[in-house]
């Protein structure tokens, strides 16, 4: 079975939620829509307190090409442009607070009925951009940017990422099982945008039902590939390497080897944007972990308060850590006063006994991290440089190629927070670069 070199195999823990069908999260009374939910240039609110908004209406306009708008998750009134803790930075960030009126009125003309395959490439790109579609796997990079490679790069491979290699999470799995048409049709639209006549959907072998269903439904030009169950199989560069044997050069992007990778959820969002003009205002999220009473897969609107999501899933059992995303790359939260965002692929609640919150000790140079690193780096050296803040030396040791997957930290017997050191070094290196 296809795979890459390195990586780890943590307990999958998907049984908690993988067989639970997606349930619709009921309408909330208030939404907190963060203005910045993507990687890249900021966006600016275009509504003000007191404005009436309709479902799907634009709330912010992007400032720059690598930026996307956000949209109203339902109809109602803008209460204020307030501040709420951003789940990624942990700092207060501007958000648009909307009081729902319960009427669920769509913005004028929505949803549309149109045939994306009759639209031109430019029209499709505009539709994707206007809908605010970002990478739904968690990185939230604007999709339209990824679909516009520079002229000198030829794209010959398009991979739909259905690997979902993060333990616990099952949102992509459920999406592929319950709404395969959205994924497949969205794949078709992206193929058209990229000018390709074939694509590959990659799914880890621990989802045999999804593999079977996708193979059954997929048209001839879309190939469905099973991948070995290994983390981080769903990381862009590892996925390309497993399927095509190509290696993204150091410091390069997938487009340097002619590949584009999109998450299965992103494909579904692209389909909604192009066929129906529906912006990205909701997503499928796995609420799981042993710290939540009733793990569920929910279809939830962007901006829904986390507290309500937790209540909907039966409340907390016992909690040591709440993580947005998976246990490997997700971001731990310190408060429940936050809101679901476009990149929230999962809400993971861990109990004390599911975590390992202990102090770290000195590196014993055992080399397990070197074995685990899917990028072929030497994490032990990076972690030691991190302790000293020696970012220049770390860059010489290919610091910037680290994808922060956390495999090294997972296997480290000394509990060293290696990814934390790497992030620290990257920040130092960026700051030194900005100073020059």
């Amino acid at each position, binding site marked *: 079975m296809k795979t890459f070199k390195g990586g780890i195999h943590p307990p999958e823990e998907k049984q908690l939620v993988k067989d639970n069908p997606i349930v619709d999260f009921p309408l909330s009374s208030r939404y907190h829509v963060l203005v910045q939910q993507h990687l890249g240039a900021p966006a600016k609110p275009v509504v003000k307190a007191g404005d009436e908004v309709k479902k799907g209406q634009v709330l912010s306009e992007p400032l720059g090409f690598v930026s996307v708008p956000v949209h109203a998750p339902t109809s109602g009134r803008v209460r204020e442009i307030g501040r709420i803790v951003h789940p990624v*930075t942990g700092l207060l960030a501007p958000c648009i607070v909307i009081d729902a009126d319960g009427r669920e009125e769509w913005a004028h003309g929505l949803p549309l009925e149109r045939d994306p395959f009759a639209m031109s490439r430019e029209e499709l790109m505009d539709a994707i951009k206007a809908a605010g579609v970002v990478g739904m796997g968690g990185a939230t990079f604007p999709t339209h940017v990824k679909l516009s490679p520079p002229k000198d790069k030829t794209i010959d491979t398009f991979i739909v990422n259905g690997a979902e290699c993060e333990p616990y999470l099952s949102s992509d799995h459920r999406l592929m099982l319950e709404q395969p048409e959205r994924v497949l049709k969205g794949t078709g639209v992206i193929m058209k945008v990229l000018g390709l006549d074939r694509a590959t959907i990659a799914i880890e072998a621990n989802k045999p039902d999804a593999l079977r269903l996708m193979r059954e439904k997929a048209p001839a030009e879309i190939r469905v590939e099973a991948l070995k169950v290994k983390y981080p199989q769903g990381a862009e560069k590892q996925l390309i390497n497993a399927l095509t044997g190509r290696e993204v050069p150091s410091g390069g992007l997938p487009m340097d080897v002619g590949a584009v990778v999109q998450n299965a959820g992103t494909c579904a969002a692209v389909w909604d944007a192009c066929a129906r003009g529906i912006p990205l205002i909701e997503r499928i999220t796995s609420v799981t972990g042993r710290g939540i009473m009733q793990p569920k897969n929910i279809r939830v609107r962007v901006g829904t308060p986390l507290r309500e999501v937790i209540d909907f899933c039966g409340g907390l059992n016992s909690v040591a850590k709440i993580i947005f995303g998976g246990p490997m790359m997700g971001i*731990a939260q310190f408060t429940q006063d936050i809101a679901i965002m476009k990149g929230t692929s999962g809400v993971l609640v861990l109990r004390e006994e599911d975590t390992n919150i202990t102090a770290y000790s000195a590196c014993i140079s055992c080399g397990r991290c070197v074995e685990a690193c899917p990028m072929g780096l030497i994490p032990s050296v990076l972690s030691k440089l991190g302790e000293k803040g020696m970012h220049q030396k770390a860059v010489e040791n290919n610091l910037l190629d680290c994808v922060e997957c956390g495999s090294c930290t997972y296997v480290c017997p000394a509990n060293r927070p290696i990814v934390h050191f790497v992030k620290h070094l990257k920040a130092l290196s960026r700051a030194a670069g900005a100073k020059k």
Partner: protein
Amino acid sequence: MISSILLLGGIGFLAALVLGISAVTFAVKMDPREQEVLDQLPGANCGACGYAGCAAFAHEITVNPEAEMACPAVNEKALEAISAVLGRSLGGSAPLIACIRCKGAPAETTNRYGYIGPKDCRAAQIVAGGPKGCQYGCLGLGTCEEVCPFEAIIMGEDGLPRVIESLCTGCGKCVSACPRGIIQLIPRTGNYWVGCVSKDTAKEMKPLCKVGCIKCGICGDVCPFDAITVSKTASAEIDQDKCQRCGLCVSACPTGVISALSVPRKVHIIAEKCKGCSICEQVCPAEAISGKVKEPYLVNEGKCIGCGLCIEKCPSDAIERIIS
């Protein structure tokens, strides 16, 4: 025995010969003043001048007659010595000192979560913006202490860094290292600073910190020199150029968030210039000036608060500020 002595002696002689010849042929010509300048520089290689280190800067300032004194850490005595060596007068910048703009010691503030990662404020800042409840306050992990090349910052027992005024040279290393941007360089002339940079409103801040700036604006109202700007969404800011060091804001601040350097600030009347007009006596809010009309007036240093009101009003420029 003899042969060993001869052999070793011979090797020694040969080595000495090689070293001697290379010392002459490969000698690096160096302006002797360069070494003298270097001896006067602080030698911490902190890089605040913009050069690779003290030696690189000493070279530049010696060979380039246009070069300005870029070392912020050099003291007045050394500056004079360097000027003498180079034979041109170098105007050093006004001496600066670092001040810590946060008074939120752990006892006064809350934490958002327990942090067990690397002991470096910059690393802690990456984790959800740092463990401290206030997202603007000092994280207290001692990165400024770590980077200070002059050992002028120590972490106090209260968990906040403290600047040792006599050791700080104002090089600014700590300023760029602090991820919260709470260290500021202010003139050494004994200025005041607001020990808070929070942009939270008083209501937002109250549950997080007991000692921060509550944006009440009293300091701005009492300042006779209009040197303090206050807004609802930023801590009070003292304009160091306008501040006359009167200290009225310190006593007016309800949370005690305004601090001062410990150098006493006083005024002195130059007897030769004083015409004995008594204006200074009249404007002095501290009743620190006394004297007889038409005779030189005297300042009672114990009472003087150094507000400088007399300096402004003196018609004969007879009053100067002193740092005693």
